[in-house]
């Protein structure tokens, strides 16, 4: 197992944009996923790691890749492509895991999310955020908190608390049992 990671901490990410530190606004970490750009609230991002093999968990939906050891804590790793039911992709050198803190009714949890690659930290004024479109996106619009136009194009801002809430991810659980219990 390769232990090499590219640990881009939030601090250094912010450091990249020190010149914008004075703006009042929100900051989003943007990343690529299947050709689209998405953003997450940078305050929720704990760290960014390179992809490393994780321990598989039995009978979980495909988008749950498994769990990893984050300095002693057991953190689940979700593949966002599979979560959005997009085409799966081979992991490359620039595939990263964004570790986010998710707030839920029961407290806060730490979850890792696999994306194609990270881009920049975006500074956004509240006024620049447009409401999400009703259709035409690959992603269920419930998880999109807004839309921003940046230099490279449109960035869809994700609501991680909803996206990664346990209830959402396993909403189908109550309807049917976990996949493939001993399919002989």
């Amino acid at each position: 197992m390769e232990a090499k990671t590219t640990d881009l901490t939030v601090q250094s990410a912010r450091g990249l944009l020190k010149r914008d530190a004075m703006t009042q606004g929100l900051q989003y970490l943007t990343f690529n996923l299947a050709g689209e750009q998405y953003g997450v609230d940078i305050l929720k991002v704990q760290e960014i790691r390179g992809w490393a093999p994780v321990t598989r968990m039995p009978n979980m939906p495909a988008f749950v890749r498994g769990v990893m050891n984050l300095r002693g804590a057991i953190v689940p790793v979700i593949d966002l492509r599979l979560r959005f039911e997009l085409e799966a992709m081979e992991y490359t050198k620039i595939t990263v895991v964004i570790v986010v803190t998710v707030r839920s009714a029961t407290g806060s949890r730490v979850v890792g999310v696999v994306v194609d690659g990270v881009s920049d930290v975006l500074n956004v004024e509240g006024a620049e955020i447009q409401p999400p479109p009703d259709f035409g996106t690959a992603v269920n619009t419930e998880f999109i908190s807004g839309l921003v136009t940046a230099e490279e194009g449109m960035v869809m801002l994700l609501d991680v608390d909803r996206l990664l809430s346990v209830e959402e991810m396993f909403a189908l659980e109550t309807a049917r049992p976990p996949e493939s219990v001993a399919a002989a």
Partner: protein
Amino acid sequence: MAIDIGQFVQTFFEESFEGLDIMEAGLLALEPGTTADLEQINTIFRAAHSIKGGSGTFGFRDVTDFTHLMETLLDRMREGRMAVTHETVNTLLEARDCLQEMLVAARENVPVDAVRVQGLQERLSRLLEAEPANKDAADSEPVFATKLPPTQPVGWRIQFRPYPQLMHSGNDPVRMFRELADLGELTVRADTSRLPQLAELQPEDCYLSWELELRGVATYESVAEVFAWVEGDCDLSIEPLAEASAAPEPTAGKTADAAAESPAPGPAPDPGVGQEGQQGELLLERRKGEERRKGERRVGPPTAADSGSIRVGIDKVDTVVNLVGELVTTQSMLSALGEDFDMSRLDKLHEALDQLDRNTRDLQEQVMRIRMLPVNSVFSRFPRMVHDISGKLGKQVELRISGEQTELDKTVIEKIGDPLVHLIRNSLDHGLESIDERVQAGKPETGVIALNAYHKSGSIFIEVSDDGRGLNRDALLRKGLDVGLLRAGEDYSDEQIYDLIFHPGLSTAKQISDVSGRGVGMDVVRRNIQDVGGSIQIVSRPGRGTQITICLPLTLAILDGQLVTVGQDCYIIPLLSIIESVQIQAGSVHRVAGRGEVLRFRGRHLPILRLYELFGAAEAQTDLEKGLLVVVEADGRQVGLFVDDLQGQQQVSIKSLEKNFRRVPGVAGATILGDGRVGLILDISGLIRINQAVI
């Protein structure tokens, strides 16, 4: 300089809540109708007295006033002037509950339910008034009993016999007598009979005893207070002085000394004495041992509300401190070795590493024990509950508790409280029959509920059993068929039918809203227990009773595990669950209808669980004869887990998956393996359940 007593308020509350527990236990132990055990009432009285005193110090006036009423009532009871009846005991119990509320309100600084307080005050007052021999209405100043109501005593006779070490703690009898002299007219007679020869005299010991007479209008309380500091270090008796009367009975107990016995001549006759109250005695023997015992309280239960703190016995802390010391020694040894290391010192390195292993293990074990509390902290609330509910239901119930000192991890204790309450309520409500029914069935009138806790093979077992009517197999079967959980025409074992009571649709809790309250059904009970890694089983015999056994892990945090590989994945099986590992011989596997694959093993049929199938593992060994079968046991059932291979054994610390993720069926938790990977720990009972569901 004013001392800020605010810092001590917390302690006052903690101690008061403990005092309330003592009062409750004491009150429950009082048997109405019989002559009460003096010492018992004394205990309750003292607890109330402390609360009263403390609340006065900290300015909780309403608590003081309220407790005073209770105290007066208790005092009359211990003098024998008030009978111990159901009514008095129940009123006191309710008053105690109210007092608890008042203390909580005081602590949280919220208003208290004044209506309730008022109501209880009235009831207490009425009881005090109803005293036939006493014309006093309950008043607010402490009128401690005289034997000759309604007058004040003319004085007190005090027999004071200090133990030799009284003066060691700085107490001085002379000073105490001076205080007494302030209260009235004091005459003192010293008994010097125990003085030894000068050469043998220990100057710091007290050999004297005294008989004092205090005449005046001093109250009993003020006299007793003078001696408050030396309660545990003397024999003390304070009796009211009467006018002409027979000699008081000799003081019982330790004072066998003749000199202490002379009765006082009666003073001028008291006007207005019409009643003929007995000339009984007020003998207060402060027993040394009792006070000592209270002061030395070791591992006690946590305070009423879950305060997030724990009381730990000093011995446990000492052990940990010692072990850390040893650990430090080992560490410096390793340090020294590391400085100038070469291969010739390899042996020493191994030795030191072994020692480190031992130290760490010991330390870990001891630290875990700190979180262990006796299960009594959960059991202690049940006597009261049984008392109240059996009263309400009109049944006679005896609660037998054993093994209450068995220790459990604090988190586990917190989680099983509610399930146990539910189980006992069920027994009270549904299990035990009414008195008439029991008599008809030839059973003793008093039903028995037994609570037992014990350790066995690395787990804790808690049994709740009753000698009631047992589970109604037929009724359950019918309900199961009605609801569709059972199929008609099939033959079900008793176990399977009793298991039905754990299904949500069949919970009977809904029927009785008051007694079985909170909407906690048996399904929630079982889930709560499974959540802490435990299991629950029922055994029942119609007409004879029911026994529910809960099995809980001793600790939630550490596990000895066996690593196994299934395909690419590595799993950990708790060592305690493993019976043995075998290789499957050709031809010994059969397929049984309704049970899947089984291995003929030692005359039994062992179901086989192909883990690679269950877990969807890739590239795993599928040929039964080429892998290994690990025979495991849980919930009294055995199963064989088919794996590729065994790896090593390791002690692992259990990390919950639910912290960042959720519960995964079949997985009890996760851990970090030696190489940094995450290993999944298997939940054996869970696996067995999954397997059964699939078949």
